[in-house]
């Protein structure tokens, strides 16, 4: 599931889950699954952020090297 989801989608879904929980739209029964999903999403987001940061740094290092 990690591959196809985008950071944007993942973050939006995370926000949606948080909003649902905040507005009491989730029952305790669903909470565990939602928490799991949220955790996956957070991981996906972090991973994507880290990867992107590495990519960007690498590119910029190259750019600097070339002058």
């Amino acid at each position, binding site marked *: 599931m990690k591959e196809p989801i985008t*950071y944007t989608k993942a*973050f939006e879904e*995370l*926000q949606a*889950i*948080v909003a649902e*929980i*905040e507005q*009491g739209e*989730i029952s*305790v029964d669903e*909470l565990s699954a939602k*928490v799991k999903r*949220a955790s996956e999403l*957070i991981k996906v*987001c*972090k991973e994507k*952020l880290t990867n*992107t*940061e590495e990519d*960007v740094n690498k590119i*910029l290092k190259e*750019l600097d090297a070339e002058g």
Partner: protein
Amino acid sequence: MSELIRDKTVFTLTEVAKSIQKTIADRYTSAFWIKAEMNKLNYYSHSGHCYPELVEKVNGRVVAQMRSTLWSDDYININNRFLKMLNEPLKDGIKILFQARIKYDAQYGLSLHITDIDPSFTLGDLEKEKQETIERLKKEGVFDLNKKAVLSLLPQRLAIISVETSKGYADFMEVIEKNPFGYKFFHMLFPAILQGENAIDSINYQLSRIEKVKSHFDVVAIIRGGGGDVGLSCYNNYAMAKTIALFPLPVVTGIGHATNETVAEMISFQNAITPTKIAEFLIQKFHNFAVPVSEAKQQIIQEARQQLLDANSLLQSEAKLFKHITIGMIQRNKNLVNTHTRSMIQDAGYVFRSERNKLSTARQTVLKDATNQLQRAKQETGNLHQTFVRGSKTFLAAGNISLQSLEKNIEIMNPVHVLKRGYSISLLNGKAIRSTGELNENDLITTTLFDGTFESTVKKILPQQS
């Protein structure tokens, strides 16, 4: 004089010419001020004389034409004044206001002998020509065309119209070639005359050549410099100006002079006072390109990092919020469950207490009411008991009383009491004698007294007389 030939009066050509000469000399005794266009100056350098060709045009068509002469001394004098006032020499194609005498020569025919030319008229006319050029270009809608031409983002390939040996060209190349930024230009010189009448064709010619290879160039630079300010009215020329205006590449001009801006400069894509300025203009274009590019790097680095930082902090705050509200929700539910548990414990306890109370009340009620009822029954029984005792006694007393009363009555009726008082009862044959009629003499009667009886015989009967 004239002769008659076959009835006709015939003059010789000389006679006619002399007649005309005389007539003109008689008629035109003084000099006139005339205005005309000097189509050609026709300067003869070895003699120093000029034979200007004068015309008048209406709507471009020649309606009058005349030859003229300007002698060397006059020419030098007038030309100096022109140069001084107009920055232009006497030249072809200008309008002039001149003083002349009409002269007829048998050999050369009619001509005007120019003695003076007013440079201020020509100045006005040149100015007028400039204005006309501007108006015409505007009217044709081409005035702004070169300004609207698209200058390459990097005007890197330069077609230079200049003179290789000129100071302007050298200045320009110095700036372009030795720029400290390492900007690389490609340039190619298209040599041309840059001032005077010939400049028009020369420049137009080179422009036409450049146009052929325009795809190799980004910009045309017309560079002049060090040649003084004379002979620049060519840049007001309609033909040249139109060529520049219509030129497919942007044309930049660095003509370098202190006089009024020429039309060519006005309509050029960019005009600079000096060739150096043109070079700087081009360098500036490079800057305009190079600076954003190198800034772009910084901006992108900064923004990308900032965005990642922002995204990261947003993500973290979302994660924190998520944790907070999730734990809050669990806590809330725990509290609810606990509240319900406590409430149930309390309520169950209350049920027990309440039921115990009810039972206790029932017990007390039973005890109280049973006791009361027994008490009441005892009371009733006791009352009845008393009533019974009293009734029994009363009953017996009443029996006694009635018995005694009867006894008294009987006692009263007992004859003994009458007998005691002296009365007696006499019986005849056992029956009480109530009347004398019942008696017969000698009847044996028994008389009862209170304390006994006695017997006697009736001797005499005495009935009561009433």
